């Protein structure tokens, strides 16, 4: 009886227990996928409610207050609880495999990051059931957010603080993993582009999230402990929040889009049967976008009254980002050029992305022009623009990644017919919903409008937009059916169903829990492709077969996150009744207790013995 066998054939209860305690990056990836997918559906429902409200002028489908909760939670959920975790799902599933590692650098931290995100996300949504969710917009501009009555914004502050800590841990983890755990021969300039983008995105997380953390702490003190950081009447300043938020918020956009670029780069190279064109330029463009991403935050604030000098500087800096982004678009096009293009669902998403994202980039440059932005700002033009980049870029990337990496994660291939139906419905619905919104904005429709008046020439555009949203909703339902159908059918595929190029496809689908029996020797970019062109079946090992050191599972991350969740509730409700401070102490006690246990108790992991690995190979 070895640990290898122990992992097979388990009851439902022990599977649940396994996932609650797992530190395996592949299982954590699945947890991220499920949780992120759930929040994506939730945010989608909120979006549909918004579009029903705006289907005709002066509609009364929802009240003004509830509408504000819907828009706030739609944005917050989609960015922090859907897009980020889904990115993390693929980073977890793929990055260690792509660099030839057996796990991430800090498996325990990886698990803690997930549970913090999940409990933070749940905390954010508790408000729905206890008298109102956050209602000050996902940007939570002060003083609207600091003066918003009820506990809605408190949930926003504590929920984001907790899930943000999880994200920060994830970012640090991937930085260390990519720096330290690459297989022999995997130099930086041989790393697949998805790994590169995950690397740069992690660096952005490391530098951007602290700004959010600080902002949220200040807001927490303003709301719960009567400080006045953002209160102009008391000598505070409300514009500071906007700076803090966007110093985080703009890099956040690149945290989301860069890994999506990485996914597209993998897919386009694989299904063109070509090496990524201009790999070096692509890497430098990624790093440059990441760097410039920190220099442009104030382009969200052109109308704040910063003066023409600041506006001009941030306008030009923002335009500069178009250059590396353009480099990327052209390099993808030239990867396709002269290739052998196979069109399947994953590739459809990648191909649909190119024109969609180019439109988003165009309007991005248009918005960067400060003196034109005076008209676009805070209108549906902006809504249209960032949905073109976030849906047309990030969501398309996530859906492409879902189809492309599904075999590696689950060992099955998603149904191609249903996949293509999903793509076309979603693609058409997406452009219907958002293209018209550029015009709605310039025709005088500001964003975050609960109703629009009759006779303002906005009726038709809004109707078209709402219909498009429903097409996207139907497409998402078909995707769910596809997932169920594929899982029920459970037709297993081999290690390399796409005839792909990178290391993750060199090991079985799904990979064994130790990933690589022997670490592979990497001899260039696209290592698997190199071996295949030289007639070999798989990678050449870089080491003899030996014992493999593995980390132990742990329930501590889950308990610790529950502790923070309880403490969060305590912080929120001590405003009404100081008795709730006991929840703060209990919650923090649990969390700190877990940290103490983790620090004092040696957890040295275990070894998979060489003999067991050999025995397994024979079976």
């Amino acid at each position: 009886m070895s640990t290898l066998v122990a992992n097979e054939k388990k009851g439902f209860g022990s599977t649940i227990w396994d996932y609650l305690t797992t530190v395996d990056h592949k299982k954590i990836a699945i947890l991220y996928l499920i949780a992120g997918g759930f929040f994506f559906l939730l945010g989608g429902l909120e979006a549909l409610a918004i579009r029903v409200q705006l289907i005709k002028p002066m509609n009364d489908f929802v009240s003004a207050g509830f509408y504000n909760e819907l828009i706030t939670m739609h944005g917050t959920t989609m960015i922090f609880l859907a897009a980020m975790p889904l990115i993390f799902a693929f980073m977890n599933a793929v990055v260690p495999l792509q660099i030839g590692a057996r796990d991430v650098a800090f498996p325990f931290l990886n698990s803690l990051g997930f549970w913090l995100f999940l409990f933070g996300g749940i905390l954010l949504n508790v408000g729905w059931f206890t008298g109102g969710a956050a209602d000050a917009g996902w940007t939570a501009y002060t003083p609207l957010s600091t003066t918003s009555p009820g506990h809605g914004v408190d949930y926003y502050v504590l929920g984001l603080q907790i899930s943000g800590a999880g994200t920060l841990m994830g970012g640090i983890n991937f930085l260390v993993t990519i720096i330290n755990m690459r297989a022999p021969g995997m130099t930086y300039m041989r790393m697949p582009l998805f790994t590169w983008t995950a690397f740069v995105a992690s660096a952005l997380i490391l530098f951007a999230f602290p700004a959010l953390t600080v902002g949220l702490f200040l807001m927490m003190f303003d709301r719960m402990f009567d400080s006045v950081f953002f209160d102009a009447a008391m000598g505070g300043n409300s514009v500071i929040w906007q700076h803090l938020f966007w110093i985080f918020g703009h890099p956040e956009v690149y945290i989301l889009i860069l890994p999506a670029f990485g996914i597209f780069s993998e897919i386009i190279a694989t299904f063109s049967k070509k090496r990524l064109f201009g790999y070096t330029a692509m890497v430098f463009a990624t790093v440059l976008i990441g760097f410039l991403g920190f220099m442009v935050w104030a382009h969200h604030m052109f109308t704040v009254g910063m003066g023409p000098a600041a506006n001009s500087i941030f306008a030009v800096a923002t335009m500069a980002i178009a250059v590396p982004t353009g480099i990327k678009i052209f390099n993808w096009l030239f990867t396709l050029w002269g290739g052998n293009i196979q069109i399947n669902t994953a590739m459809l998403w990648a191909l649909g992305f190119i024109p969609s994202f180019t439109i988003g980039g165009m309007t991005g440059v248009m918005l960067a022009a400060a003196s034109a932005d005076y008209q676009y700002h805070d209108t549906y033009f902006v809504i249209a623009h960032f949905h073109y980049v976030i849906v047309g870029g990030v969501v398309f990337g996530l859906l492409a990644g879902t189809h492309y990496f599904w075999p590696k994660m689950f060992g099955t291939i998603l149904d191609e017919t249903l996949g293509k139906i999903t793509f076309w419905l979603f693609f058409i619905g997406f452009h219907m919903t958002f293209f018209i919104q550029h015009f709605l904005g310039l025709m005088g429709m500001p964003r975050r409008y609960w109703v629009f008046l009759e006779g303002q020439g906005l009726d038709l555009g809004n109707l078209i937009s709402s219909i498009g949203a429903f097409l996207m909703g139907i497409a998402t339902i078909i995707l769910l059916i596809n997932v169920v159908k594929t899982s029920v059918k459970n037709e297993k595929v081999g290690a390399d169903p796409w005839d792909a190029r990178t290391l993750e496809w060199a090991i079985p689908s799904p990979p064994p829990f130790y990933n690589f029996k022997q670490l592979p020797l990497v001899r260039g970019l696209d290592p698997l492709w190199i071996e295949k062109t030289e007639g070999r079946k798989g990678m050449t090992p870089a080491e003899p077969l030996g014992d493999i050191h593995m980390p132990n599972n742990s329930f501590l991350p889950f308990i610790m996150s529950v502790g923070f969740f309880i403490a969060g509730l305590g912080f929120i409700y001590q405003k009404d009744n100081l008795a709730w401070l006991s929840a703060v102490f209990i919650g923090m006690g649990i969390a700190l207790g877990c940290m103490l246990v983790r620090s004092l108790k040696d957890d040295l992991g275990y070894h998979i013995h060489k003999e067991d690995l050999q025995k397994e190979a024979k079976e």
Partner: protein
Amino acid sequence: MKDWMGKIRTLSLFSFLVLILSACGKENLTALAPKGYGAQQSMTVIIVSILVMTVVFIVVMIIFLYVMMKFRRKKVGEGHIPQQVEGNHKLEVIWTVIPILLLIIIAIPTVAVTYDLADESQMEDSININVTGLQFWWNFEYANEEIQTSQELYIPVDERVYLNMISNDVIHSFWVPTISGKMDVNPDNENTMYIEAHEEGVYWGKCAEFCGDSHSLMDFKIVVVSQDEYDQWVAAMQDTDPEYTAEAAEGQELFANSCISCHAIDASSTNPVVGPNLADFGNRAMIAGVRDFNKENLVEWILDPASIKPGNGMLGAPYLEENSISEEEASQIADFLMELKATEEPVDSVEHFRENESVHSN
């Protein structure tokens, strides 16, 4: 610089684009058919950037479609293994340098217009109006003329008017798309912008910064009038002493009991601003910014402001909490309010607006 801009605008291509774009939207709301200096300047930058970006988009799409047609598996054959190209330095340089040049084309007018629209050199010789944004209405104080009004801002045509804006509560944003781009109205500091309208009329203004429940109903108007009309209006506002008919006497008394503590009816009042100043109310283009101007709507507003603008400041009024005003009394107050006029008749623009615009709300 300005001449150079003028030349650009006269290019026929531009006028052609403007023509297409002006087909979009309501003429006194849309940003696409500018009738003011700021909106025109922004439009110039919008058009320059659309043109440049369209060129880029077309290039991308041509390559994209060519590639999609030429290199499909069906065309090149199932087993074809393409040459594994590393990249091409010349191409990389081309698609780095050309975009930089294109961006410079956009950046120059952007920066020029940004500075132009922030110009405060003529501030002292111009009309200065102190704008205050409040949840969910606007107060306008003419600094030198010493008059105050709310919701409808009168300015003379072709005249530069400076707006010094501050908020009394949360952040708002002042936006009249057809006349000029927007500027935030912060509680922290006074923001200044200028507007200059080129055509008489009543223009829709919107609050563009999310400010709470009735953010979408915080509409206001800019009434652009001839210089003569403006001078008459100012003179009349400086001396608002309306004569009431006998029918309004009861309404006046009710108003004095229930409303006057928040609403001034004297345009030269210098009391702290609590609720909208109702001087010249009888000449308003709309009621509460979002309802057609008629008595029925006004009575409804007095009796039930919550259902028209959720969360507005009037909800705390004692008369509503005590439910102390009957429908008949509300009607009398409405009679009184509609007689509050600085000038005998509304200006032509407002008359025209009332006749031609309707938001049909009940």
